[in-house]
């Protein structure tokens, strides 16, 4: 038997539950064959999921590390592999390897601070892990605000969890918004960047931003108007990846590899990288 460790050889996982979040997002619950979690991770880290013969891709782990039983992945249908994943049923096995990336500094820089999470669309997926981690260790952090927006009410990922759990927690305020008016919607209507400015957060907190590039761009300038500094704002990136370990050479921005040195970057760190994307 060959006994060297090899990072590219994955383990097998089983999908034990599939939840339909929105018309194009499903959340998959994955455990190993012996029913355990595949590995421990830090909020913000990713894993490589694959169906052999279909493809392999990087997904952020949306469940919190404090969940001892399983991992969850919220996946939007947008390509070859994700189409396949959306079409499969529970009990399907897949391969999983990881964890990859650096994750959010939840145990260092976030500690003791007020937090502001801003997400758009599927951008909530990587943040969900952090939010649930923060909820679990509620005492370590200050006030938490969550601004989340999507195209429509149906496109809000994890809507039930947000309403039934997050919004009911002490010290957590949830601000939802959708792009266009809808008859059954009585909440805020408008784009995330404007909503953030309307809410007018004081710049004494750490902000975490995730969503489509255009949302990031305008929200960021909104935060600067509110007095935030680049060193207070984090985001998480996504590029094409194959190996996940900084060797295959495609996910770099300048000299940094998103799979290894990222995917979480602070905006002042991003500033040092070339404006490639």
């Amino acid at each position, binding site marked *: 038997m060959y006994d060297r460790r*090899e*990072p590219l050889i994955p383990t097998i996982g089983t999908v034990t539950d599939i939840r339909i979040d929105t018309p194009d997002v499903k959340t998959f619950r994955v455990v190993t064959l012996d029913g355990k979690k595949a590995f421990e991770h830090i909020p913000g880290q990713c894993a490589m999921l694959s169906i052999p013969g279909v493809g392999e891709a990087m997904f952020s782990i949306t469940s919190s590390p404090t969940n001892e039983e399983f991992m969850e992945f919220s996946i939007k249908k947008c390509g070859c592999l994700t189409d396949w994943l959306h079409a499969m049923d529970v009990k399907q096995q897949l391969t999983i390897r990881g964890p990859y990336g650096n994750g959010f500094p939840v145990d260092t820089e976030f500690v003791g601070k007020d937090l502001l999470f801003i997400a758009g669309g599927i951008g909530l997926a990587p943040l969900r892990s952090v939010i649930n981690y923060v909820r679990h260790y509620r005492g370590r952090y200050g006030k938490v605000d969550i601004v989340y927006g999507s195209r429509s009410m149906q496109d809000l990922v994890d809507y039930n969890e947000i309403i039934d759990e997050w919004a009911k927690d002490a010290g957590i305020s949830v601000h939802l918004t959708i792009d266009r008016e809808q008859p059954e919607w009585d909440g805020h209507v408008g784009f995330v960047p404007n909503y953030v400015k309307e809410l007018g957060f004081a710049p004494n907190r750490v902000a975490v931003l995730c969503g489509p590039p255009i949302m990031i761009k305008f929200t960021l300038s909104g935060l600067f108007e509110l007095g935030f500094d680049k060193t207070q704002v984090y985001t998480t990136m996504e*590029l094409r990846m194959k190996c996940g370990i900084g060797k295959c050479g495609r996910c770099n921005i300048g000299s940094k590899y998103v799979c290894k040195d990222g995917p979480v970057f602070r905006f002042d760190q991003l500033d040092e990288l070339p404006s*490639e994307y």
Partner: protein
Amino acid sequence: MLKYRINKLNELFSSIAENRLLYIPSDGTDGRAHYTRWQDGIVLSDKLNTVRSAKDFFFPQSENLIEFERNGKEIKVNDIRKEPEDFVIFGVRACDAASFDILDRVFLSEPVDSYYASRREHGIVMTLACDRPAETCFCTTFGIDPACPGGDISCWQSGDWIYIEANTEKGKVFLNGLDLAMEQCDENEIAEDKKVICERIGKLPINNLPMDCFGAGKTETYFNDPAWAKLSESCLGCGTCTFVCPTCQCYDIKDFDTGSSIRRFRCWDSCMYSDFTMMSAGQPRPTQLERFRQRFMHKLVYFPENNDGIFGCVGCGRCLSRCPISMNIVKVIKNLGGNSNV
């Protein structure tokens, strides 16, 4: 230092090949040198270097990683790795030998790539000094000395003799294990040859490119340089430079359905290809300019930034002679450095 009669080179080869696979550069039917498995009748090429680099031995163009069996909803993983056979590559030039250090920094850094690592452990590199470097050589730019070619064992051809010296413990053990009567000799015997090589390389047109202006921390200086547009405008977007390059190591991982199983294999990929960074979400490097820039910035700035200032190029000159449109790293260096006619 040891020496051995050059007219008995075949005996040296057959002695090596007794317990190991031996590969030497030999002329193919196309009149060019290719690494060939040695057996009686295979003759050492007199060409300066092989068309493809020696990286193939440690990082082959295509290799199987894992095998999967899919049965309904079930998946089985078969580890198909095998311990490679011991092998020796003879006649590696100084540039290619230096490229292994660069590849090591990628593949042997944590997490270690076991496929590469096991090949490295089972391979012995016997280098050969370049007594006739060509006009396309610029290894000295990167501090590589073709007169002391490195590897596990260095060799020099001089007069009637081939001089052999082990550089590593692995090389020493290997040489001691050979069943050959080699003569002990003094290093000074080849001092003159080394001097000649140095003189020769000193006279080459591109041997000492100015590299001070490149390296770590230069991203901002060059990233938005207008010269990229000009340099990349005629690039075809083929992968020739990447595939003949001894230091290019980007790869792709793909699945092949054999009908009875799925083989996951890895193969060389090129940052010059338009689909290299293509995602279902879009293409972050939409034109050849960005791809071209990536390749050279990687070698000249990003790689040194992550690897103690070591450049990702060894000056072997392969891209100079192989690029269909004759664009190459030398022209890039000279242009960005601001002193060229190109």
